[in-house]
């Protein structure tokens, strides 16, 4: 782990500023105000009735790769079309229509998409080689940066086709009071971008980090388990097999597929989640208030809990079995498999709010909250 002093040296960042400040020229405006399905209870047979569909982007074919709650508990998320068009979306707490803005430019979409709230109410969005800061109150894009693929601190073979995972896209984003820290795949550096778009190397690292987390209020660039063993992350998928969360001294959530168990260490002590297996691809999200959610997609279910309470509940996901969704009645004959094999809708992103609220998106391009 590398903890960074914000007074670290400022060096070149390897970014090309497409536009440091957008005074509204590339602003986006609310486009859409009807399809939120706000407040309706999901009526599908499978899945817990407390799961409510709050947005459906299937009409515009946008995957929701990242969800976040703001400080007030409002739900925000990023949608991305296959052609690289990104959108910032807000679900008003009063049940009003979905608010939505398109971000300027395009970026190749994928799960490595980030959404973090800035201290002034604007939002940072990062995906692939792009970074935006957008203010929804004024509908202005304040920062739009495009990263160079090549970087002086990139690891050997980072941009060569034969590498296992070539590329130097953004793989971590963490807000501070007036800036964001940023890490990149295959780049041995921790970077900082100020609100005005100025960017710099904050710390040269000995390794290329797998992501960023906040531990005790400080940024931690964490490596993959292959590099450093089990690491900590505030919110991450378990692509690297094992992940853990460590926010305070008295609460931690650990997923270790190798041990096929998850444990919660709460104020009341340590206990096991019944030996439920965590599997590759499961995700963990933990809110600032100590609430957490763990996907157990093969069940399919989400485990909900609170660090302070030590009470864990399993919530069945919608669309977890064949027949649960009108669009998923078949296909098994085509794949030479019996229907009982099961077609599963995958959780794409999950978030926990400051009061323990939980929201998630799935591969059918919908967003849900847990009522």
């Amino acid at each position: 782990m590398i903890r960074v002093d914000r007074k670290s040296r400022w060096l070149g960042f390897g970014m090309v500023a497409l536009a440091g400040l957008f005074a509204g020229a590339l602003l986006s405006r609310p486009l859409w105000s009807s399809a939120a399905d706000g407040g309706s209870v999901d009526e599908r047979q499978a899945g817990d009735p407390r799961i409510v569909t709050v947005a459906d982007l299937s009409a515009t074919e946008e995957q929701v790769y990242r969800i976040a709650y703001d400080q007030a508990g409002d739900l925000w998320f990023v949608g991305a079309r296959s052609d690289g068009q990104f959108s910032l979306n807000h679900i008003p707490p009063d049940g009003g229509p979905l608010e939505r803005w398109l971000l300027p430019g395009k970026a190749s979409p994928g799960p490595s998409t980030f959404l973090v709230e800035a201290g002034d109410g604007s939002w940072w969005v990062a995906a692939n080689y792009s970074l935006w800061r957008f203010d929804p109150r004024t509908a202005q894009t304040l920062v739009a940066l495009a990263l160079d693929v090549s970087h002086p601190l990139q690891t050997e073979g980072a941009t060569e086709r034969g590498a296992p995972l070539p590329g130097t896209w953004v793989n971590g984003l963490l807000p501070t009071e007036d800036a964001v820290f940023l890490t990149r795949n295959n780049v041995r550096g921790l970077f900082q971008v100020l609100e005005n778009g100025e960017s710099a190397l904050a710390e040269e690292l000995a390794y290329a980090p797998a992501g960023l987390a906040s531990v005790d209020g400080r940024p931690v660039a964490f490596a993959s388990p292959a590099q450093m063993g089990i690491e900590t992350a505030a919110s991450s998928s378990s692509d690297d097999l094992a992940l853990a969360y460590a926010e305070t001294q008295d609460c931690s959530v650990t997923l270790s597929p190798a041990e096929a168990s998850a444990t919660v260490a709460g104020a009341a002590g340590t206990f096991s989640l019944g030996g439920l297996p965590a599997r590759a691809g499961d995700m963990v999200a933990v809110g600032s208030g100590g609430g957490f959610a763990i996907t157990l997609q093969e069940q399919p279910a989400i485990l909900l809990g609170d660090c302070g309470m030590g009470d864990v509940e399993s919530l069945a996901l919608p669309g977890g079995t064949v027949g649960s969704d009108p669009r998923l009645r078949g296909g098994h004959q085509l794949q030479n498999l019996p229907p009982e094999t099961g077609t599963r809708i995958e959780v794409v992103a999950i978030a926990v709010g400051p009061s323990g609220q939980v929201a998630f998106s799935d591969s059918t391009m919908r967003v849900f909250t847990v009522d």
Partner: protein
Amino acid sequence: VNVFRFAGGLRAAQIFVFLISVAAGGLLATAILPPQGADAGSCSGSPQKQWVFRQSSLAAYGIDGYLRHPSGAISDPSCNFLAHFIAVFNSSGTKWVQVGLTIGVLPSPPDGPGGAPTTYKIYSDGINHCGTYNLVNHGDPTSSNRPYYISYSGQSGTDGCGSWAKFNIRKDSWLNQPIWYRYIDVASGPWIAENEALKDSTAWPDTGQPWWGHESATTWPLAYGLAWYNYSAGTWNEWTSTQGGTTGYISDPSGQTQQYRWCVDSVNRAHHALKGASC
């Protein structure tokens, strides 16, 4: 007292049925890996299927190549369905990771997500190491001739389902972040490029000659052809006849006349499926 509730999980009987069905699925699955369905159509009856393919005889850690789809809709899109794709699978064909393009609407039943009547859509699907089938519609292709990549990530392990290996699916550039991750039980296996067509009582759709790789590949570098991934060497290698493999077709029900042929041009640098008697 710490409380654990598991209200939404599978009951033991369900789990048993699930396991049995997975086992049955494994027996039924073939080495051919047809993609999944499209939106429900207005046609009726059981669809007829035909697949033409090129399948490796060697194992690899991934496959990549340009997938070029014809412009315009297929004939009779309300009852026909086409897909062309690349995939890596385990030796028994029971687990796979696949990315490709689909167009058309299937007769109903069966139906499922992932297709559109008149435009090609990117999809990825597979059966993971847990035996669960997943399909995702990734939306419109960036253009009608783009590269797609399936490659082993170097990450593997063991969980409650057994061994797993993580694969990245990318599009447009190998330097882009993956658009999706998928897991199967092996890091390497045979790979395949395939075209699939389905119809009900209507005529077989014209495939419009979808290509894998560029048809003028002799003037193009390796990156434009079909290639297989050697993870240990860190190289992508052009898929030529020296790698062995099988070219063929399968129809369902069996006994149907072959409607599509797998054609190889330019010293195997490009492949295409053709509806007709010969290449």
